[in-house]
């Protein structure tokens, strides 16, 4: 697969390591009420869609960026790749 790195352009997926669902960006507050339940859901409950999936890739053999890649799990078509940092910052803004 080729991943369209937002800074470096098309890069071979071999340069990356894969982590999983981009919902890992939404880490619960460990000091909040009910944190135990929230962390259980955060860590263990994932969707497994046949279709569009947002997922985290680390450019380990490259510039060390974490990316949020939007990939179709059926066709492997990649429709978007963003810096995870930008995505995370935008989410914090919403909160």
């Amino acid at each position, binding site marked *: *697969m*080729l991943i369209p790195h937002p800074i470096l352009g098309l890069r*071979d*997926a071999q340069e990356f*390591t894969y*982590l999983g669902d981009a919902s*890992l*960006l939404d*880490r619960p*507050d*460990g*000091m909040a009420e009910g*944190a*135990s339940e929230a*962390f*259980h859901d*955060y*860590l263990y409950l994932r969707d497994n869609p046949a279709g569009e999936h947002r997922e*985290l890739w*680390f450019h*380990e053999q490259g510039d*060390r*960026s*974490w990316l949020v890649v939007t990939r179709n799990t059926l*066709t*492997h*078509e*990649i429709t978007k790749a963003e*810096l*995870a*940092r*930008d995505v*995370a*910052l935008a989410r*914090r803004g919403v909160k």
Partner: protein
Amino acid sequence: MTQSNRLNGGQIDRAQLLRFTFDGQSYSGHAGDTLASALLSNGVRLMGRSFKYHRPRGPISAGSEEPNALMMIGDGARVEPNTRATVAELYDGLTAKSQNAWPSLKLDALGINDVFSNFLTAGFYYKTFMWPRAFWEKFYEPAIRKAAGLGRLSMQEDPDCYDKGFLHCDLLVIGAGPSGLMAALTAARAGARVILADEDFRMGGRLNAETHELGGQSGADWATATLAELASFDTVRLMTRTTVFGAYDHGVFGAVERVSDHLRPTGDTRPRQTLWRIYARRSLLCAGATERMVGFANNDRPGILQAGALRAYANRWAVTAGLRVTVFTNNDDGHRTARDLAAKGVEIVAVIDPRAEAPQGDWRVIRGQVVDTKGRLGLKSVTVRGHDGRQEVLQVEGLGVSGGWNPNVSLTCHQRGRPEWREDIAAFVPGGTLPVGMAVAGAAAGDLSTHGALRGGAEGAVASLEALGISAKAPELPEAEDAPVQQTPLWYVGEGKARKWIDFQNDVTVKDVKLAHQEGFVSVEHLKRYTTLGMATDQGKNSNLGGLAVMAELTGQTIAQTGTTMFRPPYTPVAMGALAGRSVGKDFKPTRLTPSHHWAEKQGAVFVEVGQWMRAQWFPQLGETHWRQSVDREALAVRKSVGVCDVTTLGKVDVQGRDAAEFLNLIYANGFAKLAVGKTRYGLMLREDGIAMDDGTAARLAEDHFVVTTTTANAGPVYRHMEFVRQCLRPDLDVQLISTTDSWAQYAVAGPNARKLLQKIVDPEFDISNEAFPFMGCAEITVCGGTRARLFRISFSGELAYEIAVPTRYGESLIEVLMAAGEEFDVTPYGTEALGVLRIEKGHAAGNELNGQTSAAHLGMARMVSTKKDSIGAVLTRREELSREDGLRLMGFEAIDSDTLPAGSHLFAEGAAHRPETDQGWLTSACYSPHLGKPIALGYIKQGGERIGEVVTAANPVEGTSVKARIVSPHFIDPEGARLRD
């Protein structure tokens, strides 16, 4: 032997005589021959035995689809099994051997299987070897494997080397027949970067095998001229002997180039093969078509070939499978074989065609079908049934069979393509979603005429480049053959009781397909697996459609409704060596050397692999004959005076920024916000699920600057995790990370005289007295008169100890300086074994204790997990099961009346049975403690903290060992830590 079956003409160099052997017999051929064409020229038709029935077989094809003529080529360690003689390029001195036959190809003992073929039908193994169950592993399977294999490996190390390479292009053209050549020419003239790859050693595809003219010249001459023009472009790469074997995601292709397989006897030293990863913006598949056989009784005799293959041998290689030949065809194309062979002087006994409207020629045309053949080791006669019912026997040595042509759609299916049925040519053509950027042209797309191939190639290239914004113009097409496909589908002949082969490689017959249907296997994928039709290297190339057609007939469905099985990569077999490339032996992974490596080598150190690193394990001295002597001496020397150990391999991460302390507070379970500048702290890093991930230290060199260390093994994963936290969880923090593991050489200097030693090399303006630089201090200093260094007063051994770091390039000097300065203290270099002994005696956890199953509480560090802040893993490490009071605890163990205490032993209460339900824990690390004079261990045991003094059994029920051990504090030496602060 003379080349009795050699004809005139052909694209071989008769001036070059090449000698070779097959099963010990010497033969000769010419440059340009394949092994198969050379053998046929010598009158050899028998080239192999079939997989299951050991039927005598010859080649049916002249290409890579060959199922029968598989041989072992080469000698000794270089022998390569299952090589297709039809594509093996002949060279002088080639040696080939037949396989799957004993004692000889002509007299094969397991030919007996053929006699019992009624018992060996589809599903035979599943049905027969069921009972008794215990027989399977010990008897049935080994016996079947022994009998059924084809070629044998040399069982020696592969002496050749293989390479890997990467290529990029605008347009990858796969196949260099008429469509591929025209496509490449079109693209090249438009200035595009083109790769033209073909599996053959001579480009041109069917142009080399046919007598059609292109614009007034022979097809082969047109191909030669076109290749000459292509070679003149800097932007074109012509790759002969290169098989594009797989189409992967996003325009990535796998290809293997046979670089020097054909040059071996010349002593050529280039890699044998190169595995190419090709990144193509667009690709055009011009893979041509494969002719299909027809199922009739005994259709597998040596001398029965595809009609097109018979023609290719005559036209390209000037060879005939026999001097008297007949053709059995259901389409007009088959008649061309008769025409071309007759032109070369081969006697055409008859052409057999079931159609009423068959074309006529200068030979006899029989309207009818072949119903049987004779000639066990080579075709002698065919029996023909005329449509008028009359039966006739024709004495012939060669039979060309044509059941029509199947487009080579394999690569279109490697992603999501699903072939579609085209009734007019009675074949599957590419359909569904093709791999990204792929188009198909020529025969592979179902355009079976030469003109159609040229036009398709040109138009395909224009369209592919247009999508890239490159404007291309189709060249003027040479005038070429443009006959329509005229055929009446014929999959198998009904008459005849003998077996009618569909899959030659896997020995599957029409009857097997019928049996599978009768037993309820109606899905094509089930049919494939039950009968093995189209499995292995065939991947359906020859056999697929024949089987589907029989199944369709039985189920009363059309072939389109029946569907087709999938074609999977690789298109043809790829050597494991090519996939491995240079990553073999010691080059399997990188080898990392520590800064003191060469120095340690000079001291005669014994090394150990730790991940990618080579580390000194111990330093034997004169007179030491057992490793324990060296290790005990090194460990005692540290406790007595001072020792030095290279700890560069520990991971180091530089953390800088205004929010660096807040960042560390998040990644470590214990607090870091209040750590003073100039201080170091032990840090426990948890995974988010509460399990210990790693431990290390963080030293605060400045308000906004920390240096974090990790264990050797986790340097990579911890850095990745820290970047995850920084970029994904707290992008709002002002903090930057960089791995500096390779930038700093670092040594542990440990023992009561450590300070005295260091004071001799640390520049005098830096006061490292106990008062000025206490336990857990850290500082940026200089040594040896101005060399930059970092000093940390941390201890893994439990002694007064420091770690000193200098830029890596000074690492080798520093060890020499330390050894020289330490001479008056008898400074001792120590390796990883003594390091392990020292840390076990001190009770420090390491990799064995942080094994991915242990929580903070198990390590006895539950109280370290701060409740005053949020940190990774803090919430879930408090889960009931991970934090229970009576759970596992890390404890120390001393052997009682035993000279061993094996790590990995499980722990049981004294007298309890050794069973999983009575298991109370296990020993993680063990060593002989020279300090205590007995074996000791660290381990996890239930309710450990409350059981100090209790005697338990450390047992290994698998090996039957059992030792008594006393539970003690994990801190075997100096539990109060007085030495550290001295």
